[in-house]
């Protein structure tokens, strides 16, 4: 199997997995889920790092790679933290006993 065919299989199976992972989402979680998924899409950091690694110390490539790494990490770090901030609000309070239902 060539590297490309292999990559296509990976693409196909990854997409199918993604379609299956999210079924019923309570509306409460739409915003955090979107924000979390958004953070994950910052996985482009891997591409930025690869670009830097393969740059052979060529300056323009290093700069482009570094810039792209900055954008991607802004997405990743900001995304995960903001999602955590939102979700922390849901879990902070322990259920109160006997209070109004």
């Amino acid at each position, binding site marked *: 199997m060539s590297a490309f065919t292999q990559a296509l299989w990976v693409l196909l199976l*990854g997409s199918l997995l993604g379609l299956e992972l999210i079924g019923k989402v309570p*509306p409460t979680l739409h915003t955090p889920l979107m*924000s979390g998924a958004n953070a994950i899409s*910052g996985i482009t950091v891997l591409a930025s790092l690869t670009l830097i690694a393969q740059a052979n110390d060529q300056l323009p490539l290093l700069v482009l790679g*570094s810039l792209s790494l900055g954008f991607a*990490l802004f997405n990743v770090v900001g995304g995960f933290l903001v999602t955590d901030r939102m979700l922390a609000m849901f879990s902070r309070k322990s259920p109160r006993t006997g209070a109004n239902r």
Partner: protein
Amino acid sequence: MAGLDLLPALIDLGAVLLLALGIKGLSKVSTARSANGLAALAMALAVLGLLIQQPLSPQAWLWVAIGTGLGGLLGLITAQRVPMTAMPETVALFNGCGGMASLLVALGVALFNPGGSSGLVEQISIVISVFVGAITFSGSIVAMGKLQGWIDTPGWTQSTMRHSVNISLAVACLAGAIALPGDMAGAPLWLLVVASSLLGIGVTLPIGGADMPVVISLLNSYSGVAAAAAGFVVGSQMLIVAGAMVGAAGLILTQVMCTAMNRSLVSVLFGGALGGSAPVGGGGEEAGYTRITSCSAEECAIALEAAERVVFVPGYGLAVAQAQHALRELSKLLENHGVEVTYAIHPVAGRMPGHMNVLLAEADVPYEQLLEMDTVNPEFPRTDVVIVLGANDVVNPDAKTDSTSPLYGMPVLEVDQARQVFVVKRSLGAGYAGIKNALFELPQTAMVFGDAKAVLNGLLSELRSMGVGKKVAA
């Protein structure tokens, strides 16, 4: 596979597994927070695996440090500073930056060809990565600008002219894409970059504010696609699988959100702003109401004092007025008085689905008091007082009864079943959908005009002066 390759491969597999578990866990309330952590851990693992496979030179490390420092620090600051009410535009901003990252990687590979080879597969991947990355970036930035109120909807974008503009831009993109393999680092590349960016603006600009969350969710899915395409460009399977997973999951989430808002994806993308195309109700200003009862905060407070069961219906207006803390205080006061208080949350209350839950949670409202539509609707007939705070279309009874209404079929909160309804609203202006609300004219409904926060504070002081919530023996 040689032993040396085994470790990074195992790390990658572990990262994919954690990522999948993370996405799955994020769709359940009980596991969401730890799942978010899992996904972050997966990301760190993936980076570790890559660094083992691709050692960096000292100079490369320097540039990695610069990018990491700047991006990470800005992300950290933004995530901590941004108010919860501004969450939709923040997600849009983050998302746009993810798209920009894919775009920059593809540009770097196209311009300098560091890998040394450029087969057809690589060229196609570059085209996709540039195209999707640029659309994600410019579209997200426009979405953010519209949500922040920095950008209006220009008139021409509501006419059919926008279709011709966007089609010409798409043709320009296609021309650039076809010419690209002949001249990797030349004019076709820049044509593609510019035309895709403009196309991102052109398709997002006509969409109204109410539909923006769907657009952001869709753009989020695109940024997954852009990441997968970047994976093909640099030959990283980890990137392909993660990008594909987020792309597909984002698509499902977009669909789920559309269903909750009773909109089809096609009408969101091509229908223009809702209400802009439907000439109903005279465009929104005081649209022909005849039987409106208005009342003061005092009368409302008296009704609250006498009630046994109160339901608050918070909406966009509450978020705008930043009144969630005042609301929490009011409900605490009523609870101390022995009133049963709950909140009815429509799936699309707030500025995007689920946003209201976040805002109320921030104001310390206990999670169990937030009732979803299906739970709360059967309860309205035995509810004494409903207070609608800055919500409009989601409580419009026409959605159930009037088949000519544009809202017809949208699931709504059946507040008209309650004994008494107070609607706190700044004016009789129409909601997002730009249509009349039959609820306002019902005999049991009274309007309390004013800013949600001011009205709530007024209610608080009225109730306090009536002695409610003081230490009365139960």
